């Protein structure tokens, strides 16, 4: 080991590790334990969702059905409450995004199993069309948005990346979603958002168009009528919930979600 040439300092006089200072006392597992449903057939399903264990989720569902639970009722009775624990703890900063992603995978696996079992799709909280701007192939942000929306019970029509403007318009016409989302990493591609806005306006649609991503900022999104800026991917389900509770007035949405 070579001799270090670093200056010896007292870090506490230079910076504050607020994340260490403010950390919650409770472990994620303890916090989740307090929130799980108490029903002994539902509890293991919710816990398996929290742990992101897909096979255990399906196993738990099988046992619950064998115990007489209605398969379709298990979506709202077991899968959604399990995911609700995950979403709440993520919002509270107790758990982190990868936990949510793995739990969402496990929940979707459970939904697929139940769909096959009863032969029909479950009711969702509403449809949302998601896309990455035309010319832009950076889609990790969109993937996070899609996962969080699905985790919160929304039916997502995921158009993918580099989506032509007209394809977004067609999807809106076909699906009648309660919200559209758009993400972009580059300044020149996010200009497509304005075109989408103008075409939607022209056709008489007044649905919120939630935009975010690396190069996107509130000033830009505020330039077109339907634009609502989302600084964090986790804003997407909150916006959708807000629309369901308060209607889709863009001014109200901006008032709530525009932070700058």
């Amino acid at each position, binding site marked *: 080991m*070579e*001799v*270090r*040439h*670093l*200056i010896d*300092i007292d*870090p506490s006089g*230079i*910076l504050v*590790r*607020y*994340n*260490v200072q*403010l*950390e919650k006392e409770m*472990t994620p597992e303890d916090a989740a334990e307090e929130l799980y449903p108490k029903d002994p057939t539902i509890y293991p399903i919710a816990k398996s969702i929290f742990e*992101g264990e897909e096979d255990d989720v399906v196993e738990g569902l099988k046992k619950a059905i064998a115990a007489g639970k209605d398969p379709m009722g298990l979506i709202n009775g077991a899968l959604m409450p399990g995911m609700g624990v995950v979403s709440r703890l*993520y919002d509270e*900063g107790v*758990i*982190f*995004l*990868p936990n949510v*992603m*793995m739990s969402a*995978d496990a929940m979707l696996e459970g939904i697929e199993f139940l769909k096959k079992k009863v032969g029909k799709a479950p009711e969702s909280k509403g449809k949302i069309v998601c896309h990455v701007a035309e*010319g*832009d*192939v950076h*889609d*990790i942000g969109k*993937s*996070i948005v899609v*996962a969080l929306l699905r985790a919160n019970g929304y039916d997502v029509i995921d158009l*993918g*990346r*580099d*989506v032509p403007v007209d394809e977004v318009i067609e999807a809106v016409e076909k699906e009648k979603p309660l919200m559209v989302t758009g993400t972009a990493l*580059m*300044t*020149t*591609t*996010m*200009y497509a958002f*304005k075109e989408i806005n103008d075409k939607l306006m022209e056709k008489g649609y007044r649905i919120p168009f939630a935009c975010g991503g*690396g*190069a996107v900022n509130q000033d*830009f999104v505020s330039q077109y009528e339907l634009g609502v800026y989302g600084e964090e991917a986790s804003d997407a389900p909150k916006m959708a919930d807000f629309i369901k509770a308060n209607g889709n007035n863009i001014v109200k949405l901006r008032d709530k979600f525009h932070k700058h």
Partner: protein
Amino acid sequence: MAVTRFTKMAYAKADDMVFGKAVKPVKAGLGLEIGAGYTTPEVNYAPRPEAGASKEKLIKEYERITTDIMARMVQIGAPSVVLETEHVQQMTNNPSWGAEVAHAQKTIMENYHDEYGIKCALRHTPGDIREDRDFLKLRGDKYPIFLESFEQCAESGADLLAVESMGGKEVFDYAILRNDMAGILFGIGVLGSMDMEMIWQDIAAIAKKTGTVATGDTDCAQANTAMFIAGGLLDKNLAHTTAIIARAISAARTLVGYEAGAVGPGKDCGYENTIVKSISGVPMAQEGKTSTCAHSDLMGNIVMQCCDLWSNESVEYHGEFGGTTVQCWGETLAYDCSLMNVALQSGNEKVLRDMFVASDMYRDPQGYVLAYPHAYRVGQAIVKDGNDIYLRAKNAALETIKIVEEGARGKLSLSRFEAKALADSKAAFEALTDDKDKFMSDCLTKYKKEVKVFLPENYGL
């Protein structure tokens, strides 16, 4: 061109590494030397959204940007400057667009050089366009267009050629959101390295043919994605200990560019560049406190420690109170370089370097590992098995974990969440095989099943 693996360090010890000096300096452009005893600002910019509407608008935008920067540099007496044009997709997809922009920019730069003697160079960074809507198409019909873009830019005025390539990103994007260490290692360390080996031999050949400089790649698509998702101290999207493991692995990947013929200066957003410099000796651009216009990084000063070019990452071109954005940020960069150059001239460079380091080293595990004595150790871990792209990437991860553990026993505070993520990562890496073939075969099976967009043929597999 042949690929020559690094199996030993370029620097005898970490303390020999400093800003403004590289073991292998690079001459480029109009009278400029990089890593030859002074630092130079590198200004990077993005056109306004509406400028992408047509080729004419784009060229005009870049002419304005270039004139603004050169004029401001002369106004404040900056002796040297590098401009970096990161292509918008139209400029790479239509190679003649990129070429016309390069020509327009270089013409302006030549005029300033002729009139004032300012040393300058133009870096062009084509976009990695090798994909379609559904899949990466690394070896498909977009590859010739991608290479054509480099060639036309080089022939039209670009002095320095760079890229931020995307190999491995489809697996990485899946893995990073699921704390999947094997996937992070496979995406960056193996798939990324394999793709880099192909493209950098070709880009280096183009540079040789055109008399320009192949500067290298960064792991922007992966390690920067991890850093960006990890965010600030209070963000809750990714453990910063995981982000720095991805970063360390990315050094083993970024190194491949220099093994395949690139000579530097490495591009600004490669926060792995200190590690890569310790191994390769090539000069490096870096970004930190001056790239707050683009993103926040918790390493504002520390990344200056061994930089040769000092950059602002990217700023949208528009007006500010003090001029246009490129003028404001360019001026800030130039004053930072001025301070570093005073330190170099007066023999105080190590003092200033160590102040940069001390100010950020304990802010976050990422800065702690990238502090040059630790970055050097990661470098040593890589060259130990330099001939095996898998083992060296795994070594980088394990050494990083060890460094953070040591830090946590001292002045580096870890949150309980970070400590747990670190322990989980350690267990995952220690459980991995030492046999590259077995790892490859396990990963191919796993990710072909789990990642629908992963096509092994992209990597010749």
